[in-house]
Structure formats: structure tokens, C-alpha cells
């Protein structure tokens, strides 16, 4: 078993190192194949571990080596394979494998092909460290590794120039990469503080030891730790107000977006909350948990509203990720941790499929992402059309696809907890989700052909790419059917993750489900009515709508990026400039410069002593002797 753990963990790392050997040379197809194969190996190992855990019910815990040992402080490089981590491992490696294979086709023409694979595999490795670690410090290392790799990957096309915000809301890949990294750093500080608080009060970083001590801690400590850790989760999972980086991260190559949004990175925050569920289910931190649920619901609604009017294909999908993350936090905050984790897994499959399909469209349209320039693509891209439709149905939450079961369970949870406001918002959001995901499908694949007049000649993606995507399509359909099996599986971890609906909710479950389906269907119907018809009923852009207050508000993302720029970025730049010219140049630099100048001037002045005349030297020697004598005499007086 131990070997399997190491294979699952280190195969991506080996793949990354292998690819990095060829980082500077031109495209070599075997680099992509080897990297994909190694991730595939990691997936097989993870799946075997999952199967083993399912059949034998023994949690595997391995310690690779002592890591830090200083005084009383001991941290080991240890890994734990329990129901939570094995779920994450399987999902992460499965999606990553498909994304890797996809990238072999997608990055075909890119001259930095090899470099891309070394980053991509390193990204997966970091995520594996994050989910497999059995202590908070290991999790933090993976957490930071994911941040660095996302920076490298989002800014992969760093040579693209900056654009105006009006033309491109995310300015440029390097700008977006920096934004993502800096926002995550801000949140990481919170996370680090949370880890410090836990260590300070429990004397350990090991999950089980920390959680065993929780009942003995007082309320203030628990609340502070819960808040600080959640701030970290907010950054990684892009919750309001640290959400703007997520949509801007669309500047990266599409496989990266798929990986960030589906399996790695953004799910890390949800994972953290689920991992720390003993902490968040303490009665003392009920307030924090409720806040998590409320924030999640708010973000679900908020992101969905922005997706309603977005024209950029990838950004719509990014908003949907944001929205679905909100659902996950809502579930986790309400105590239904296993439902959150199940939604995370289901979401990973259909979201990866959606992104990869979006990548196909982008590839076909020569990097054009504006939905208004597409239309009627289904005749030319049949495979992609089917995938996108399946994924969108799953996202919209129609039975029997994956999204329905998990999302419905979350909405039911909100009803069960008597948080009716959250429940109503989540139901409405479900309708909006259906609308915007089908708006996107109809605008790109149905309706009038708008791309041919603009000179686009789309072509379908390579066959092997479409075949590689098929497991995701299958999973996007069937995952939901295994919900009760999964429930049985994860319940073995202990009471803290168990969550049952009350009898009352149970009776109403069918009606609640039907209500959600009704909202979803009406969203789809409205999208069809508005965008999918052809001929004289075809959808046209209307000035009146686009100049409306709400449209402007939504398309500008509620002016939040503008607000950040005006009230944070610009003042910060001004302060930095002032500090540079006033403090740094005039105090710090000046001090250093003056020390050098003083030494130089002294040397320059005293150089005259060196006359070359022995007599002068002797005179100076005498002066020195007198000075020494004086010093001796003075010090003798004081002793």
C-alpha cells in the first residue's frame, strides 16, 4: 500500500522533472505522452487506493521522513489516505490525466510545448501534496505550490502585451497571473495565521491530534482559527471579495483553466473546510459556519448574475465555477460536508468537460471567444456540441445527470436547516445557472450562423482529443447515480461528516426537487426562446438592453475590479511611488550612499599622509603613539 501512495504522489513530480529536462528545446511529442502516462499512473494508483479503502476500510497512513524537528516542534512528511483525501486524489488525477492528453492536442502548435507540460505536472503534484498531507504544514506547502504553478500557467503566454480594460477585462496573461498570485498571497496570510493559532493552542499540526484537542479549546481560539483558515480558503476558492482573479485567470491556456477550475486549485479551499470539518462543526463556531454558508450562497447568486450577460465563452464558464463553488461552501457551511465533497467531484467532471469543449471552440475559432461572433457551430463541430450540451445539462442540474443529484442535495440541505433565505436564493440561482449555461450553448452552437460572414472557418478538434474527453462525458452523466454508494463510503470516516435530512424534508424532497427542475427548465426554455431560434425570430443585439443599468452593472462585474483599481491599486501605486522617492531614496539609499561617500572622502583626505618620506611617517607614528597613550591614560582614570 505504501508504494501505491508514493506512486500516486510522485508520478506527477517525475513527469514534471522529465518534461523540464526538455524545457528549452522545441516541441517533442513524447514529452507530452510521458507526462500524461505518468499522471495516468498516478490515477491508477489512486483508484487502487480508493478500491482498497472501500473494501478493507483501513485508513492508510504513511510517514516518509522527519521533516522539521526543532526543540518541541516536530513535523513529519506524512500522508493520510482516508475517504476525504482518496476522493480528492481520484478526482484530481482523473481530470488531470484527461487534461494532459487534451493538452497534447491543444498545445500542438505552441513552441513552449515541453515547458507547458513541466508546469502542468508540477501543478498536479502540488495538488496531490495538498490533499494527501496528514498535517497542516504539508497542506500549506501544497497550497503554496499550487499558487506558484497557477502563476506560471496563467501567465504562460507572458509575451502578450497589456490591453486596455475596455478591450480585455483581464488586461494580459502576465497581469492576470500576478493578480491571481497576489490575491492568493493575501489570503494565504490568513491561512498561515490560522495554522499558527492551532499550533499555539494544541502543540501539534497533525490533523488527528489537533482535532482531538478541539473540545478543550475556548471559544475565542476556535472562532479565530476558523475565521483565519476560512480566509485562506476564500482566496484559493475565489470567494467574494477575493474572487476577481478567477475570471481573469482565463488568460491562461484552456487546459490550465480546465485544471484550475475543475480539479486543482479552486477546490482546495472547499477541501480545506471539509478537511477541517471537526473544527467547523464545533458548536462554538456555528456563527462562522453560518457565515460560510451565507457567503457561499451570495457568491453563487452573484457569480451567476454576472454570467447572465457575459459574452466571453470562457468567462461564462469561469463564473459558473465561481457559482458552483458557492454551492459547495453553502453545503459545507451548513454542515453537509459529504454533500459538498460529492458536489466537488461531480462538478469537477462536468466542468472539465465544459472547459475542454470550450477549448475546442476556441481552437476552431482561432482564439475568438466572443459568443456574438459564433452561432450555428453544431454542424461543423458535432462532437464538441454533444459534449458541451451534456456538460451544460449537468451544470444546469437536470436529472439524471451528475449536477442534479449533488446540487439538489445542497438545496435540500438549505431547506432542511430552515435557512429559507439561503434556500430561495439557491433555487433562483439554479434557474439562472440553467439559463446562462444554455445561453452559452445556444449562442455558440445554435441560432443564426454569425461566424461565416466574419471570415471564420471552424474545424473540429483532433479525434484523439475527442476520444480522450469521453470519460468525462460519461462521468458527467453517471456520477450522480452513485450518490448513495458514496454516502455509505464516506460515512465510515466518522460522525463529523455525516449529515441526514430530517423526516419532514424527506417527505417534501420530491416537491423540492421538482421545484428546482422547474426553475432549471424554465431557464433553459427562456434561453431557447431568446437565443436559439433562426430566421426572423433570430436573436439580435439590442442597443437598448446593452445600455440598460443592470446590463452595464453586470457586464462590468458590479464595478468591483474598477473599485479595486481605483481604491486599492492606484492609491497603493501612489503610496509606493512616494515611499520610493521620499523614504527609500532619501533615507535608506542616502544612508548607504553616505557611508560609502564618507569612507571615500576620508581616504581621499588622508591620502596626503603617504608622502613617501620616512620622516613624515615617523611623525605620524609618534602622533599615533601619543593618541594611544592618551587613550590608555584616560581609560586608566576611569578604571
Amino acid at each position: 500500500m505504501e508504494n501505491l501512495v508514493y506512486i500516486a504522489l510522485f508520478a506527477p513530480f517525475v513527469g514534471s522533472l522529465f518534461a523540464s529536462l526538455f524545457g528549452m528545446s522545441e516541441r517533442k511529442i513524447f514529452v507530452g505522452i510521458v507526462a500524461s502516462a505518468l499522471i495516468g499512473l498516478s490515477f491508477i494508483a489512486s483508484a487502487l487506493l480508493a478500491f482498497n479503502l472501500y473494501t478493507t476500510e483501513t485508513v492508510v497512513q504513511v510517514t516518509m521522513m522527519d521533516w522539521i524537528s526543532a526543540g518541541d516542534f516536530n513535523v513529519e512528511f506524512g500522508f493520510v489516505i482516508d475517504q476525504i483525501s482518496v476522493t480528492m486524489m481520484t478526482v484530481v488525477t482523473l481530470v488531470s490525466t484527461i487534461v494532459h492528453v487534451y493538452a497534447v492536442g491543444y498545445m500542438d502548435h505552441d513552441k513552449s510545448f515541453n515547458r507547458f507540460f513541466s508546469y502542468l505536472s508540477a501543478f498536479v503534484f502540488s495538488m496531490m501534496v495538498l490533499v494527501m498531507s496528514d498535517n497542516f504544514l504539508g497542506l500549506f506547502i501544497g497550497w503554496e505550490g499550487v499558487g506558484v504553478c497557477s502563476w506560471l500557467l496563467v501567465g504562460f503566454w507572458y509575451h502578450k502585451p497589456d490591453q486596455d480594460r475596455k478591450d480585455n477585462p483581464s488586461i494580459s496573461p502576465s497581469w492576470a497571473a500576478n493578480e491571481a498570485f497576489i490575491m492568493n498571497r493575501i489570503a494565504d496570510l490568513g491561512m498561515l495565521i490560522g495554522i499558527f493559532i492551532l499550533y499555539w493552542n494544541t502543540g501539534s499540526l497533525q490533523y488527528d491530534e489537533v482535532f482531538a484537542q478541539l473540545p478543550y479549546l475556548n471559544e475565542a481560539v476556535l472562532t479565530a482559527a476558523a475565521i483565519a483558515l476560512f480566509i485562506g480558503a476564500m482566496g484559493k476558492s475565489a470567494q467574494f471579495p477575493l474572487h476577481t482573479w478567477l475570471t481573469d485567470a482565463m488568460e491562461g491556456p484552456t487546459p490550465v483553466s480546465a485544471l484550475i477550475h475543475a480539479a486543482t486549485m479552486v477546490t482546495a479551499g472547499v477541501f480545506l473546510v471539509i478537511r477541517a470539518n471537526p473544527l467547523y462543526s464545533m458548536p462554538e463556531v456555528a456563527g462562522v459556519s453560518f457565515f460560510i454558508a451565507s457567503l457561499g450562497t451570495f457568491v453563487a447568486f452573484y457569480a451567476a448574475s454576472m454570467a447572465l450577460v457575459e459574452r466571453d465563452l470562457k468567462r461564462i464558464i469561469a463564473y459558473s465555477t465561481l457559482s458552483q463553488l458557492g454551492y459547495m461552501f453553502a453545503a459545507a457551511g451548513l454542515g453537509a460536508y459529504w454533500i459538498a465533497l460529492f458536489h466537488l467531484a461531480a462538478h469537477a467532471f462536468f466542468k472539465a468537460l465544459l472547459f475542454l469543449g470550450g477549448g475546442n471552440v476556441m481552437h476552431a475559432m482561432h482564439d475568438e471567444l466572443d459568443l456574438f461572433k459564433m452561432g450555428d457551430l453544431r454542424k461543423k463541430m458535432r462532437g464538441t456540441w454533444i459534449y458541451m450540451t451534456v456538460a451544460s445539462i449537468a451544470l444546469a442540474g437536470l436529472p439524471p445527470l451528475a449536477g442534479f443529484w449533488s446540487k439538489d442535495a445542497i438545496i435540500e440541505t438549505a431547506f432542511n436547516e430552515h435557512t429559507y433565505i439561503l434556500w430561495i436564493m439557491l433555487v433562483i440561482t439554479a434557474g439562472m445557472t440553467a439559463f446562462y449555461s444554455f445561453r452559452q450553448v445556444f449562442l455558440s452552437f445554435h441560432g443564426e450562423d454569425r461566424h461565416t460572414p466574419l471570415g471564420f472557418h471552424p474545424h473540429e478538434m483532433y479525434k484523439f482529443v475527442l476520444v480522450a474527453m469521453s470519460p468525462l462525458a460519461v462521468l458527467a452523466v453517471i456520477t450522480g447515480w452513485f450518490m448513495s454508494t458514496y454516502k455509505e463510503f464516506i460515512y465510515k470516516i466518522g460522525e463529523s461528516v455525516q449529515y441526514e435530512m430530517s423526516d419532514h424534508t424527506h417527505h417534501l424532497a420530491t416537491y423540492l426537487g421538482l421545484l428546482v427542475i422547474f426553475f432549471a427548465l424554465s431557464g433553459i426554455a427562456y434561453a431557447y426562446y431568446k437565443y436559439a431560434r433562426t430566421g426572423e425570430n433570430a436573436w439580435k443585439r439590442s442597443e437598448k438592453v446593452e445600455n440598460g443599468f443592470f446590463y452595464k452593472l453586470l457586464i462590468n462585474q458590479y464595478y468591483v475590479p474598477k473599485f479595486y483599481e481605483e481604491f486599492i491599486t492606484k492609491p497603493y501605486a501612489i503610496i509606493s511611488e512616494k515611499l520610493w522617492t521620499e523614504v527609500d531614496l532619501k533615507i535608506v539609499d542616502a544612508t548607504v550612499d553616505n557611508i560609502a561617500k564618507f569612507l571615500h572622502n576620508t581616504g581621499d583626505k588622508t591620502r596626503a599622509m603617504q608622502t613617501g618620506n620616512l620622516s613624515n611617517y615617523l611623525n605620524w607614528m609618534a602622533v599615533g603613539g601619543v593618541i594611544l597613550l592618551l587613550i590608555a591614560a584616560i581609560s586608566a582614570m576611569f578604571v
Partner: protein
Amino acid sequence: MIGLSHYLIVSALIFSIGLVGVLRRRNLLMLFFATEVMLNAVNIAFAAISHYYNDLTGQMFAFFIIAIAASEVAVGLGILIVLYKKHGSLDLDDLASMRG
């Protein structure tokens, strides 16, 4: 009665004379003399203090200094002769060849 302090004063005076010689003289030979004067001033002080404390170590030290000074003069004078042969002068102002 001549006490320790008298000897020390004489010693200090002779030392000062030697020091002034070292500082003011330009001729290397004179400088040598001046240093000898200073050394002997120290010897006087050693001998006087040694007698005062009834401890022979100081006088022994004076002998050592005399012996070392003699050998130093022997070497130094050898160098001076070579210098004189080379430059035809022992004046320090003429000998200055390095300037900072």
C-alpha cells in the same frame, strides 16, 4: 637623596630628546642615533625600577635590549652603507621614492 623619580625623570628627558631627534632629523644616521638614545632611556628606567623593587628581571631585560640594539645597529649600518653607495646621500628627503 636620589630616588626612583629622579631616575625616571632623567629617563623621560632622554627619551624625549631621542623622540625629537627621530621626528626632526633628516639624516638616516642621525635617526639611528636618536633611536639608540631612546632605547637607552628605556634601559635607564628598567634598571632604576628593577633596583627599586629589588627584582633583577628588569636589569636582565636591559641587558637583552643592549644586546639586541647592538645587533640591530650592525644590520642597520650595513644597510645604510649600501644605501649610501647607491644614492650618494642619506638624507630622507632625497630618498623619498613612493608617494601616495
